[in-house]
């Protein structure tokens, strides 16, 4: 590992100023991706900006009407440790307790998971399914982007030089809604998704009012399969509809063969996982109703 400088600004404007002055700087949230990459000599940086001391990035606030504000540096344990958030978003609780293990969850953030932009990132398909948006700040001001637009290539995102992710916003759960994320790993923990499916549904009178489905590890970026959710809209809530959506998700997947699984196998998993995740989401939606 090469030498680097370290800064820990206390305010967003300080952080933005540092970032403007050092376009090559890298942000440190939990560091569970960053430190691993730096030690492996990937993506070296001269300046590391620790963003854990900035108020906006540590915000975790749920309001019934407006939904959830999730600061980019909030560690996973805070999410599953918050009873109101866990009640409103059981699927988010699930994902926060899925990433890594206990030690990792003490540091790892959802913001870091998103900015790292790994095709296998476990939180991203769920954030997409939940319709989450990103608050992005830069020297020139702020902008908002949808999570499904955020990742552009493996390890790459839409943040321009000088920009950082402040927080994510997740809409308030509507009546009759449910969501779930399911990944497949050969072991039971400490593994990278061979494939994963994040789904959110809204049910009304025994029919799907709406649905959103996204996949992990089967494309260069987390994959939003809009057509699978659209297809479900208006369909009756039954196994046939669910299986149909699962087949559409499978058809949309563009996986590669690598040490974690073959193309064929991953495509097959997309349908199994989408189906199983939809089954859970529907059950959750029905429990809420």
């Amino acid at each position, binding site marked *: 590992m090469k030498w680097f400088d370290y800064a820990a600004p206390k305010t967003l404007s300080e952080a933005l100023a540092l970032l403007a002055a050092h376009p090559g700087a890298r942000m440190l949230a939990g560091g569970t991706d960053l430190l691993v990459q730096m030690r492996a000599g990937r993506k070296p940086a001269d300046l590391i900006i620790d963003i854990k001391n900035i108020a906006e990035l540590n915000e975790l606030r749920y309001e019934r009407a407006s939904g959830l504000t999730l600061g980019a540096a909030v560690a996973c344990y805070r999410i599953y440790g918050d009873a109101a958030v866990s009640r409103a978003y059981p699927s988010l609780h699930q994902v926060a307790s899925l990433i890594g293990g206990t030690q990792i969850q003490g540091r790892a953030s959802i913001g870091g998971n998103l900015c790292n932009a790994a095709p296998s990132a476990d939180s991203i398909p769920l954030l997409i399914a939940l319709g989450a948006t990103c608050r992005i700040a830069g020297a020139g001001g702020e902008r908002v982007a949808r999570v499904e637009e955020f990742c552009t290539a493996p390890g790459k995102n839409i943040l321009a030089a000088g920009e950082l992710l402040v927080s994510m916003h997740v809409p308030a759960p509507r009546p009759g809604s449910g969501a779930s994320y399911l990944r497949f790993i*050969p072991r039971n923990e400490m593994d*990278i998704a061979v494939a994963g499916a994040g789904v959110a549904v809204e049910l009304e009178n025994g029919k799907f009012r709406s649905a959103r489905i996204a996949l992990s590890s089967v494309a260069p970026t987390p994959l939003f399969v809009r057509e699978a959710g659209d297809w479900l809209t208006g369909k009756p809530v039954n196994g046939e509809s669910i299986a149909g959506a699962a087949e559409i998700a499978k058809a949309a997947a563009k996986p590669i063969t690598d*040490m974690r699984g073959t193309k064929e196998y991953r495509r097959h998993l997309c349908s199994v996982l989408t189906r199983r995740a939809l089954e859970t989401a529907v059950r959750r939606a029905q429990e809420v109703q």
Partner: protein
Amino acid sequence: MSMPTYKVIGTRPVRHDGADKVTGRAIYGADVQLAGMLHGYVLRSPHAHARILRIDTGKAQAFPGVMAVVTADDFPRTPDRIVDLGEGETPLSCVRGNMLARGKVLYRGHAIAAVAAVNMHVAEEAASLIEVDYEPLACALTAPDAMRADAPVIHGSLRMKELGAPTDTPGNVAEHFRHVKGDIEKGFAEADLIVEREFDTATVHQGYIEPQNATALWNNDGRVLIWCSTQGAFVVRDVTACVLDLPVSQVKVTPTEIGGGFGGKIPVYLEPVAAMLSKKTGRPVKIVMSRKDVFEATGPTPGSHMKVKIGARKDGRITAAQAYLAFEAGAYPGAMVGPAGMTVFAAYDLEHVTIDGYDVVVNKPSTAAYRAPGAPNAAFATESVVDELAQKLGIDPIEFRLKNAAKEGTRRADGPKFRKIGCVEVLEAMKNSPHYKTPLQGPNRGRGVALGFWFNVGLPSSCTISVNSDGTVNLVEGSTDIGGTRTSIAMQAAEVLGIAAEAVQPTVVDTDSVGFTAVTGGSRTTFATGWAAYEAAQDVMRQLKERAAKLWETEAAGVEAAGGVFRSGDRSMSFAELAARLGETGGPVVGRGAVNPRGVGGSFAGSIADVEVDPETGKTTILRFTCVQDAGKAIHPSYVEGQMQGGSVQGIGWALNEEYWMSEQGAMMNSSLLDYRMPTSLDLPMIETCIVEVPNPGHPFGVRGVGEANIVPPAAAVANAVCHAAGVRLFRLPMNPPAIMEALWKPGGKSSQLVPRNP
């Protein structure tokens, strides 16, 4: 046979090194800190096979903070000879070649040069400035590929040894051996049913948690002092002395605590390199491998290609068995195919057998021992075929094995005749286990059993015991303690001395301070070093009886000792009372034991596995797992059980997910513990254990080694269970989820017959 009664043996005292280990105070190799110490970094080959055209270390030497750079050219070039590597012999040229490449690199990760610098970051950065020009060559990565006539030749000088004799045949096959017993054709002619299958197993790693490390100081007096994590300090000493061309007495090796080895910490990789860097800089140098280095450059266990053919009569009696075993040695000859040939049919009493073994070099790291090396591969093949025979003949798989089980007097195809062994007893214990007696219910579930054998080894060990004035004793030995052997050795001494295990303080010392002791490997430590301790304790008792006789003014022959009390007529004295009077009876008492025992007792182990296979994802869940093993005599039952559980877990990992995932260019793509998937605690049930005790007549307390046989049958047991759960038999390890799905999808695969999982 009635068991003798023991006071200490068979109990479960707290291990002597326990407190230090659980409080984190134990000193491991990477903890070693010496004044003025430098850090070393080894530059490794990015190619699996290439000619080295040029190495230029100039820029690295000039980099600020760099104190020295070494390459193979810095080492003495004494004539080649055969050296003892602890568990086998090999030409010195191979040892040297593996330590730092000369002329060619033979695998990705092959060491090229090493840098010593003020810290490891500087060393690493400087190493990246070393310029190496390569001419990449085609590589051969598996035994079948390397055996092809058009395969790239890895060692131009290699000539095949054929059935024990040298030949002129060049290529990648270092040796072909054959064991023959009876008449194989006649045997197959007598069979009602013959099953013949081909098997492959991937390269897997021992996966010890602590990476290799070495700290060396080439002292001003010419002595080389080494601290390292090793299974055999004397092997490190001897190999280092050979490579550096020094008298053995000039090298002193202090073994630190060891974070696992499983055979992988017998070879020497870093020590002579650190020593040479120390010689050049005049300062101590420490090198610690990264996990990537461990995967890419230390010995995994061979991948293998095997064919096994077994014929049986309708009544379940095997009439003939034939095996073809081609094992990957890695970059240098010495695949553990010999042991595979010794164990492949060892569990069975057979009349007609032929076994062919091939030791094949490939462009992968030089393989090392891994817990019963070679035997798990072979057992996967044999026990899968045996399971299929039993299934097709409609015979219970344990009954089938009992009908054919090896017994006292059975002669193995490779020659040896079994003395008293516990094969039948292990099978009976499997049959009577709570696990086997509980029926397995539910869809997609299956039970598999398998049997395995490991012969164990003897080899030399030394020990001394000094009696303290308060009746405690200090025991000094040279066996690195990996599985609680300080305690299992101390307990054998305590039993002889008639004192408590806690009254014995065992210490593992450096190579200056104890007599030669071979590696902690081959399941030999409790057997052989325990025997040395037994001898040392006997020596103490002889001397103490003389002291008591002196005090009592009688003949030593008339003094008896039992349970820590010395008696003669109506006089008696406790061990402690006598210990307090050594000064007045002639001075200190030191007992010595030095042994090279022959009465090695092999161990049999059986696995019972219940699994559930998700028919939609191919994921296997181990529901229940039992290990049964013959320990001979379990000195400390907890440590025996620990070995049984550990071996089972490693076997399960091998069965389900572990493998070197190689690119076509010979790069390991999953050289991290994230992607090299060893099972975690969440992937396993508690492993149930059942210790069988058929005492080894060749050891004073009946000990057989227990470290290895337990890893032999698990992969086969899991494969058999998967077959019964999923309806398809897999012939390649690992049986990971994609592999199981592919088997289910194949025409004739049973995916349609499976009951879908309840959502």
